[in-house]
Every structure is written in structure tokens, then in C-alpha cells.
């Protein structure tokens, strides 16, 4: 059972490199390779993927998602491949190590503030965090606590779902190694894709919350929507 949890494989300058990190490198190589091949053979497939991602995120954020697509789209692609790569032989899911989800949700935490400041300006953004100014000593700690706790829950949700389904696969594999784990591996891949979707959706919702569209923005978006349709 000890081998189930991430182990140090080798060391670079005294820093341990875990097998999940090596798995991440292999996964990055695979994704880049597949994208290069698909780009030369079927460019329309990539376009379809980007458009469907963009439509999905626009629905979630209730505004055009193009400015946030590079961040959210790469988040979705990374987490989806990281969750399902565990089904491949010799590779393990990078998200099985709690450090990977922690890093991802810290990136989301800072991205929310970055996009908020970029949309509203630094002063306006920090004013919006403590919205009724006379209640600032009460609302500001609550806001900070809410931001930190949702980052923690984002981490634990991804990590817990991945490790629990893979633990179930490992236990069934110990009992019946032949055919029995197959449906559970399929279920684990489905859970991985679902969790990637949920992580991205929550990140989109948090970013949308941080921007807080004014009424004129919403009206402008609605007019562009009607023009598009």
C-alpha cells in the first residue's frame, strides 16, 4: 500500500523529484506532441475544442470569455489530461499528489485578484472587497476568510476525488487483478473529467465574481449576444 502514495524518484540539487512530477513531464510532452500532430492533420478539431470551451465558459461567466480563455482553457486541458493519464500503464495521475491541486488552486487564487484588478483598477478592486465602507472591519476579514477557505476546498475536492477513485481501483486490483478493475478504471476516468470540468467552472465563477460587471457591461454583452444570434 505504501507504493500507492507518491515517492521520491531522484534528487536534483538536494530537492526530491517525485514520480508525479516525472509523470507530469511525460504528460506535457504527450499533450504537446498530440496537439502538434492534430494541428497538422485536422486543424478543425482544435478549433472545435476551443470554440466549445469558449461557449461553455461564456455560459458560466455570463459574459464573453475570450479574455480568460487562455488561462481557463489551459487549466481545463491540464486537469483533464492529468486526471485520465493515470489509466495509462507506467504513468500515475499528477493530481494524486496533493501538491499539484494546491499549486493549481493557488494559481486560481491569484488569477482572481489579477483579473479583478485588471478589470476595475487596484483601488476600486480593493474597495469592492470591503464593500460597505463603514462595515469594513467586519466584511474584510470575512472576505479574506472566504477566499482562503474556497481555495482550500478547491484543492481538497480535486485531490480527494482523484485519490479516492484510484484507491478503489487499487483495492479491487489487489483482490481481483484480471477483469474486475476495468469498469472502475472507466468510472475513475469519468470522475476525472467531471472534476476537471468542475474545477474550471468554479474558477470561471470565482473570476466572474471578482470582476463584478456593472449594469452597462451587462447591457453591452446582451446587445452583442443578440447581434451574434
Amino acid at each position: 500500500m505504501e507504493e500507492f502514495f507518491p515517492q521520491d524518484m531522484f534528487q536534483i540539487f538536494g530537492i526530491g523529484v517525485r514520480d508525479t512530477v516525472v509523470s507530469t513531464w511525460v504528460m506535457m510532452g504527450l499533450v504537446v506532441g498530440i496537439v502538434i500532430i492534430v494541428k497538422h492533420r485536422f486543424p478543425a478539431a482544435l478549433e472545435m475544442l476551443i470554440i466549445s470551451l469558449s461557449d461553455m465558459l461564456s455560459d458560466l461567466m455570463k459574459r464573453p470569455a475570450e479574455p480568460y480563455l487562455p488561462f481557463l482553457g489551459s487549466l481545463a486541458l491540464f486537469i483533464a489530461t492529468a486526471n485520465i493519464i493515470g489509466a495509462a500503464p507506467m504513468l500515475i495521475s499528477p493530481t494524486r499528489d496533493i501538491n499539484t491541486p494546491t499549486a493549481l488552486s493557488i494559481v486560481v487564487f491569484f488569477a482572481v485578484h489579477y483579473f479583478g484588478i485588471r478589470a476595475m483598477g487596484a483601488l476600486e478592486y480593493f474597495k469592492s472587497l470591503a464593500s460597505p465602507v463603514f462595515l469594513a472591519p467586519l466584511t474584510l476579514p470575512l472576505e479574506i476568510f472566504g477566499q482562503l477557505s474556497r481555495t482550500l476546498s478547491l484543492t481538497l475536492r480535486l485531490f480527494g476525488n482523484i485519490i479516492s477513485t484510484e484507491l478503489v481501483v487499487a483495492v479491487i486490483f489487489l483482490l481481483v487483478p484480471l477483469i474486475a478493475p476495468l469498469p472502475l478504471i472507466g468510472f475513475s476516468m469519468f470522475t476525472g473529467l467531471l472534476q476537471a470540468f468542475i474545477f474550471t467552472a468554479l474558477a470561471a465563477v470565482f473570476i466572474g465574481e471578482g470582476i463584478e460587471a456593472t449594469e452597462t457591461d451587462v447591457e453591452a454583452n446582451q446587445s452583442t449576444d443578440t447581434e451574434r444570434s
Partner: protein
Amino acid sequence: MAEMDPGTLITLVTIIVSGIGILLGCILPAIVEGRAVLKALEGMVRQPEVAGDLRTTLIVAMALLESTAIYVLLIILILIFANPLLDRFFPRG
């Protein structure tokens, strides 16, 4: 009751608490999820035209509800595989 050494006591308490915890952590989210599915099915039957929209919302809501059970599971995994209290008495070599 006979004197127990701290390691045995902690292990015993951990096993009992893990059992109770996973029991509650499975039952309560399952009940709530079942209620969510019930309501969503009623909505789908009443208005079949919004069934697709309801289904995606249902899946997201189910995954969010499921994560409460996952939190319980994580704490119990920590208790069983990396118990911080047990490390105090038997430091890892």
C-alpha cells in the same frame, strides 16, 4: 479496565472513529444527493424541454455534494495512513 499503552489506545480510538466517521460521511451526502436527483427527475418529467439543462446542473451539483463525503474520506485516510498522534509516540525512523 486494564492499563493500555498510548499506541494501542490511539490505534483503537482511530479505528472506531474512522468507522463511525465513514458511516455518517456516506449516509448524509447520499440522502441529500438522492433528494437532489428526486427533485431533478420531477422537474424533467414536468418540463421535458429543459431536461438537458437540468442534467448538467444536476451533475455539477452532485459533484459538489459528493465532495463533502470526499472530505470525510480524506480525513479518515490521514488518520489511518499518516496519523499525526501516532507519530508522536512512534517517530518514523
